[in-house]
């Protein structure tokens, strides 16, 4: 009797497929472009996927629990703009960040309540929230761009720390956004694969009814996954604000939800719940990031890039399905 549990084994196999796809892409790009393999470019790719990655970790929880969240792009915008506005109003760093994160968590809470006790399919509940939260962000900013700088009222010492979060480099080398992503991924991995909570997320996503019989409070597990998702979308939004450092309610994070879901599904998570890993998600995010980077380096026209991205999503998930299928049948 071997030790590893089912999910780590299934996922182990899945991750292998995604991992190989990533390796193939990287090898191809290393040979066909001179700059791909440079450490600057690789760190760039890392930075560019970080915000997507942070949200994708949250979406992994949501998808495994058998739900979906379409409101993440709007939450990203609202929380980032909210924190930014507070800093511009002269708030300190910690209170402004806390407020932004709480905003994200509250949206997650509402999503969770609607999708469980509210008995709405989460696709529709969060589709409604997508529109509501975007509207609130527009109302809150009156449609005006929010730029965090001292001219607008941010305290210099607050601004400095805020910008470091988004634009700084750890040890002058690793982009801070990437550090945040790594930390979130590590934490997400620990929670999902090593704790009772993570166990319950899988159980609820596999069969909500059997989970209930086992004494698992399915509603609260699902609500928590939405809250985690909301928090991480807010974190990503705040980091985006700190990076740019500006945002606009009509545009920031528009359509991001589909990118996030695509990355997680490419990483092997199932839309019907019960299946997925943080490692797979990280690989999925990297595939999307490397693909975008590679297409630009190759000088592919932006319109062709759209086609290629769609193709890669379909092919990556198809390979995954077909390889798992041939192993189990």
């Amino acid at each position, binding site marked *: 009797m071997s030790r590893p549990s089912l999910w780590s084994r299934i996922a182990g196999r899945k991750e292998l497929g995604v991992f190989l796809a990533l390796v193939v892409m990287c090898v191809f790009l290393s040979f066909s472009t001179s*700059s791909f393999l440079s450490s600057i470019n690789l760190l760039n790719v890392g930075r560019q996927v970080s*915000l997507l990655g942070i949200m994708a970790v949250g979406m992994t929880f949501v998808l495994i629990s058998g739900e979906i969240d379409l409101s993440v792009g709007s939450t990203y915008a609202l929380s980032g703009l909210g924190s930014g506005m507070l800093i511009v109003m002269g708030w300190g760093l910690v209170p402004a960040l806390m407020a932004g994160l709480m905003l994200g968590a509250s949206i997650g809470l509402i999503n969770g309540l609607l999708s469980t006790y509210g008995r709405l399919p989460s696709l529709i509940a969060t589709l409604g929230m997508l529109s509501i939260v975007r509207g609130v962000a527009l109302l809150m900013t009156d*449609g005006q*761009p929010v730029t965090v700088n001292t001219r607008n009222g941010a305290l210099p010492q607050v601004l400095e720390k805020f910008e470091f979060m988004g634009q700084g480099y750890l040890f002058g080398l690793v982009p801070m956004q990437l550090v945040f992503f790594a930390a979130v991924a590590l934490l997400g991995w620990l929670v999902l694969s090593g704790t009772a909570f993570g166990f319950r997320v899988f159980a609820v996503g596999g069969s909500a009814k059997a989970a209930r019989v086992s004494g698992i409070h399915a509603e609260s597990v699902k609500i928590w996954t939405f809250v985690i998702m909301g928090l991480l979308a807010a974190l990503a939004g705040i980091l985006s604000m700190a990076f740019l450092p500006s945002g606009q*309610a009509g545009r920031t994070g*528009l359509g991001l939800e589909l990118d996030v879901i695509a990355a997680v599904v490419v990483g092997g998570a199932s839309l019907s719940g019960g299946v997925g890993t943080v490692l797979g998600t990280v690989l999925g995010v990297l595939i999307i990031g490397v693909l*975008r980077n590679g297409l*630009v380096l190759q000088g592919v026209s*932006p319109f062709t890039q759209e086609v290629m991205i769609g193709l890669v999503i379909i092919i990556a998930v198809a390979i995954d399905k077909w390889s798992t299928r041939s192993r189990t049948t």
Partner: protein
Amino acid sequence: EPVNVADFALAPRIAEKVASGEPLNIMVSYHDVSNEFAPFVRQGVERADAELNANARFIGPVGADADGQISEIETLMAEIDGLAISAVSTDALSPLIDRVIDAGIPVISYNTDNPDSKRLVFAGQDLVQSGRDAGEQMVNVLDGKGRVMITTIDAAAQWSLDREGGAREVLEASEGIEVVRTLNTGTDPQEIYSAIENAMLADPEITGILSLECCSTPAAGEWVKRNGQSGTIKVVGFDLLDQTVDLVIAKAVQVTIDQAPSRQGFEAVSLLVQFLNGETIDDLDTGVGIFTSENIDSAM
């Protein structure tokens, strides 16, 4: 301010290239390569690529997306000898522009400006001024009296806010003119038309529609034409899309303001090439072309 490469810390790899006379890699980044405006700008860039000693490349994200625009430039930075940027969001691109400049690569802005950044010069239309121009045309065609609705496909965008500001400044200064509302139409063509249709029905007293961009201009003109209001309800708008030209000919649109997008694309490359070859360059106003049914032939 006029600038010269002598005062600029040019990256050595670029200096070498200039010295050897190799064609320069000039990248022209546009904030949304899938919008109506983009093909015109691209034509200008392609013309520059053919006529000037430069490999000019037109780049940018599909769909206005600051992150995408930044990521692409970051990715290509090692290859860029000169960069022209039209930014989605003025503030969002500034740190990047400064980073590119600090790497010894000359950057200018075109079409939309980033005045707070270290960019060298700006080539294009002054957006606030073009708004004022549109406002003046409106006052003119209304004989200083009427109810005006402003339409835009993206009320929250910086270019829209700038133009709206300019237009309102002039309209509100005119005694007989009342600005009823700013209508945010959304970007889908059907949505644009429907929004205008609903708004006109809600307020039948409107006598002037001032569109701030390419795309609600033909929709406003179509609505006016189809409802037999050509000439009664005045339309002032922007750009020279095919449909807009038709509507100006049909006198459903009174005035349209051209931004010479192709020229903007060409000049963006040209300024960078001049700069790198040691010429002093300065801000360039690509001008506004004001077209009515009188002179629309010259636009075709």
